[in-house]
């Protein structure tokens, strides 16, 4: 809010010595023009910043501290912003047991609460649960997401939750014109909310409807805000950028389950390290038969569906 405070935390990014001076002058000159042209309250500090992956760990640390201050003030609680990186020897994988899922949508709402999505007008949900006919099997194009969750499971129907499949060959990453989204070493596809230009190419490219846009300023009541956040995950987003499931990066990089796994009342959701043969997900893959969604697109998801019973 206060321009002085925001420029404090940008001391590291805007004034970063790593940017060559000539480029900075050009940027400054253009920034003034752009600010006048758009007339929007675009903060110059963000304008001078480099993309996340170009920042040094020290720059990231400085920025994170700034955000923590800013969010703590805005939401009136001690907000932490983690910058925890991927853990060596870990590649996350997800399993979903279709024979157990009852379509209750508890995962949908647990995700919204955990990840600080916009609550209304419109509410952003990272998980979509498709209701399909048992008589036809998996037929995504004729599925329904607007069924009444109070009546589930409905006769003759089964349910298939879909969220980011954390592809090994993600079409969304390929299409991003500014490199604002990438795949981390532990398999999580993340977005730099401060670099995304909001062109929505990634949303056109994603075959799983996993990417969601902040069409309006997100509405996040202070009392509902989850103060435990991650820089590439559930920290509050501005309007005009894309967001998506990160396997709850703020939890999973600390050894916790994603919120959707924890909330699932029927134990349909499995999660773990694909590189560890003893992990829950590997157990499911070794002992059950798994499949992936839209395999013909060769996106190679880290998200596996199976029928356990």
């Amino acid at each position, binding site marked *: 809010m206060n321009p002085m405070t925001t420029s404090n935390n940008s001391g590291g990014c805007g004034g970063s010595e790593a940017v060559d001076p000539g*480029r900075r002058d*050009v*940027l400054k000159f*253009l920034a003034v023009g*752009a*600010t006048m042209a*758009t*007339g*929007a309250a*675009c903060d110059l500090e963000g*304008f001078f910043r480099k*993309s996340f992956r*170009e920042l040094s760990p020290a720059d990231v640390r400085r920025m994170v501290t700034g955000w923590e201050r800013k969010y703590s003030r805005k939401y009136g609680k001690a907000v932490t912003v983690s910058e925890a990186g991927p853990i060596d020897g870990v590649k996350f994988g997800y399993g979903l047991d279709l024979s157990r899922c009852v379509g209750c949508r508890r995962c949908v709402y647990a995700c919204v609460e955990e990840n600080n999505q916009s609550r209304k*007008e*419109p509410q952003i949900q990272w998980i*979509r649960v*498709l209701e399909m006919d048992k008589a036809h099997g998996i*037929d*995504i*194009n*004729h*599925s329904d*997401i607007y069924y009444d969750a109070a009546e589930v499971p409905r006769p003759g129907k089964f349910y298939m939750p*879909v969220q980011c499949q954390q592809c090994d060959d993600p*079409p969304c990453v*390929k*299409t*991003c*014109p*500014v*490199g*604002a989204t990438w795949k981390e070493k532990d398999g999580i596809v993340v977005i730099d909310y401060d*670099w*995304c*230009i*909001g*062109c*929505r*190419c990634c*949303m*056109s*490219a*994603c*075959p*799983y*409807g996993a*990417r*969601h*846009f*902040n*069409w*309006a*300023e997100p509405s996040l009541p202070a009392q509902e805000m989850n103060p435990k956040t991650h820089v590439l995950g559930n920290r509050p987003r*501005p*309007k*005009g*950028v*894309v967001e998506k499931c990160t396997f709850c990066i703020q939890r999973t990089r600390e050894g916790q389950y994603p919120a959707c796994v924890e909330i699932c009342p029927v134990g349909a959701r499995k999660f773990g390290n694909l590189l560890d043969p003893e992990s829950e997900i590997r157990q499911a893959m070794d002992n059950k038969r798994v499949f992936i969604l839209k395999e013909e*697109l060769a996106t190679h998801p880290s998200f596996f569906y199976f029928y356990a019973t």
Partner: protein
Amino acid sequence: MAISFLRGSARIIASGDRAYKIWVGALLTLIAVGLFAYSFQLRQGLIATNMRDQVSWAFYVGNFTFLVGIAAAAVMLVIPAYVYDWGPIKEVAILGELLAISAIIMCLLFVLVDMGRPDRFLHIMPMLGSPNFPVSIMAWDALVLNVYLAVNLTVVGHILFKGFYGKDYNKKIVIPLVLFSIPMAVSIHTVTAFLYNGMSSRPYWNSAILAPRFIASAFCSGPAVLLVLFQVLRKRTGLPIKDEAIQKVAELMAYTMFLNLFLLGAELFKEYYSATEHLLYTQYFWSGIGPHKALVPYAWGGLLATIIAFFIFLVPKWRRNMTLLNIGCGLIYFGVYIEKGMGLVMPGMTPDTLGEIYEYRPTFVEWGVTAGIYGIGFLVFTLLVKLAVPIMSGHFSAAHIDPVITAPDELEAEAH
């Protein structure tokens, strides 16, 4: 010397008859509407549009795609005019380049208004940002559009500036740039097609003949605009545009219209005969899915217009009739606008990748912003033409200009 050129240009632009002033006034009004709508959208966010996660590209992107075609088509007049030094068309080829400039400006504006964070537009620029080369087609598109704009501005600026001083343009500058602009024109539309074409998630776009279809339809709609403009300019400014030039362009259009229809037929055959799950998107456009039929009247209206226009241009006797020719131009323009605008973007996203059908219709804000951008494009074109015509016809030059504007020492400096 540049000062006198600029001063004289400003004077030319500011003066004009009643019709000119009404026209410019109307365009300024449209621009004001657009600015008002856009400032609303900036404050509210893109929620002010009817785009949503299910249909995340729509009216703006459709208009963008269509206008890239108009810009690319300028090449159709440039090829014969410059490469073969072909008399009748040469004098009007510059108008094609002016149209390309105006269309590209509109394209860039449509991309800008579609962005969630327009303040971050520099992130896509080489050197300043981090364009995701070589894999992101959008990064390439931004690059080729800007280069194409720069090339056309250079060529037109140089020719007019030299013409103003009664000199021939410098062939060493113009010829290589014009030759370069030919593959550029093809590339801007090809790259725009690849933007859609490369998306395996959207079967409706993921077709190998999408780029050829884009080129074919661009060579229908672009010249259609120019043919009408030639007649307007001939009448209002006395610019010597011969019937021969108009008929040559019309004949070329008959071929491209045939190609355009043929490619559409090939696409429809593949979809309907193989009738896979992917047919759904084509069906949404042509017959609707259940109660969702918003695009169906446009689909058939556009096809009908395209077919009628084809026959008007095909039969020599009909295309020589100026009234019929102009009707044909209007019809093909409408047909391509449907096909490559909403007819491309909407069915590509309906149903969405998880099978949901969200029927999109533009909001007033989207109409307003769009009107504003067309206002800017038409205004840029009007002013450029207003400036170019007297220079091309020799009525506006350093020799004719008010001596107060062209100080003698400036002329002398130019002579040396």
